[in-house]
């Protein structure tokens, strides 16, 4: 399984255990997140610390999560590595998502 989740401080922290969040993983990732949301877990923190490459499909999956929440709940991103952070910066994702340096920072926000 490429993903895991745990409850912490009333939020669901989702870990990605793969180094690449790309076209091959974006649909499984989206479906995994949709299952959590269907379960009522809609305060989500995505722990990106293991991901060293993400492409436009990966980004699309995160946006899909955001759309699926439809304003009820939140999705925050935590601990992106430099390459992933650069992608967020280039695509101005920081205007759409809260991006935190670490998971604990995201949980205490």
């Amino acid at each position, binding site marked *: 399984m490429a993903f895991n989740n745990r409850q912490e401080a009333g939020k669901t922290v989702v870990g990605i255990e793969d180094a690449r969040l790309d*076209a091959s993983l*974006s649909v499984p990732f*989206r479906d995994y997140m*949709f299952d959590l949301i269907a379960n009522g877990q809609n305060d989500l923190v995505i722990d990106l610390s293991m991901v060293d490459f993400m*492409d*436009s*499909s990966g*980004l*699309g*999956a995160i*946006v*899909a*999560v*955001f*759309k*699926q929440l439809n304003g009820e709940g939140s999705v925050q991103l935590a601990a992106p590595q430099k390459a992933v952070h650069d992608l967020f*910066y*280039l*695509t*101005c*994702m920081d*205007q*759409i998502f809260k991006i935190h340096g670490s998971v604990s920072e995201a949980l205490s926000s």
Partner: protein
Amino acid sequence: MDVLIVEDVHGQRRLLSAVVRKLGHKVHEAQDGLEALSLLAAEPTIRLVISDWMMPGLDGIGLCEAIRAGDFDRYIYFILLTGKTERSATVQGLSVGADDFLNKPVDFQELEVRLKAGCRVVELEQTLDQKNSELQQTLDMLEDDLESAALTQQSLLAEPATIQNIVFDWHFKPSKILGGDMFGYHAIDDENVMFYQLDVAGHGIRSALFSFALNNLLKDVDGASSIVREEGRELSGTPVSPEQVISRLNKRFQTTADSMLYFTMSYGVIHTPTGRVRLCHAGHPPILWLRPKDDTIGELGDAGVPVGMVTNASWCCQQIQLKPGDRLFLYSDGITECENGQQQMFGEQRLKDILKDAWQLPMTTMIGQVWNDLCQWRGSENFDDDMTYLVMEYGDGVSGRSGG
């Protein structure tokens, strides 16, 4: 099922044949391994062999070995008859690829059961074969489709052209699995030329089809429903501002939780008499502004979110003033993210260095040099992503127009 019985002792062969025939199978007979091999070659319907071990000429072990090493295009199930019960016979049989064993003298009930097992395996094997060939056919068809879609994509691209005093040229190489890169340039009226480059997220047919649709929409400069030109009261319409064009596209193409389709884009309008350019960026890599006269490369990337991500997004417009001889270089992320054998990315700095070396050369030469360097970096001409760059040069503005 067609069964071949290989046994040198005539009486035993006849007896076995009769029993197997009675079980409903079609029986072929051979006296030794060599005859068996030629029968197997001549009768492709034979899928199961029951063979004695000890035979003159080619024995059972040799026959099994020859079958496994041979180039039969089908799986042949092999049952070895062993007169002895010692383990060495079984071990030797297994090691050359026998599927099952029967002790002599043959117990006919046991024979029936082992034949049934053999038939099951052969049938499974046949089903698998058929499924494989069906899959192969489908795959061939899909690959043909992808190839013709890639050709369609290429045929939609604008030809290199000079529009008013702007020279446009480009390089485009779609990835093997088809991507979503698209670009274009059109005169909006006789003083304004628009240009754009976009990259739909993901790969494959879905992304490509979406990029075709966007291309058609943006190409429509004259129509009543054009999104790039406003029909004013005057005879010719006025260009819609770049941020407005992006906003309109964003309203029209919102991604959904299911589709995950969105795109990054740069869109600009050049006022050709003055060289004034208005630009809008939506998550696309920055445009490189080559200014040989000032010896600098500028980066134009007033960041904005990609198109289709959020409904209430807004974009801003950047203005620059081109001098004659200036070039704008638009590229998609496939260029800078192109990896070499060591998984290193090509990167922006490397791109800028090449451009600086070549910016005084004719545009086609510069375009060729960038491509050469990319192929050298990659080590081949196979790329994971669409590779696109669009270059335009601002001319001196004296192309048949009187100053006003």
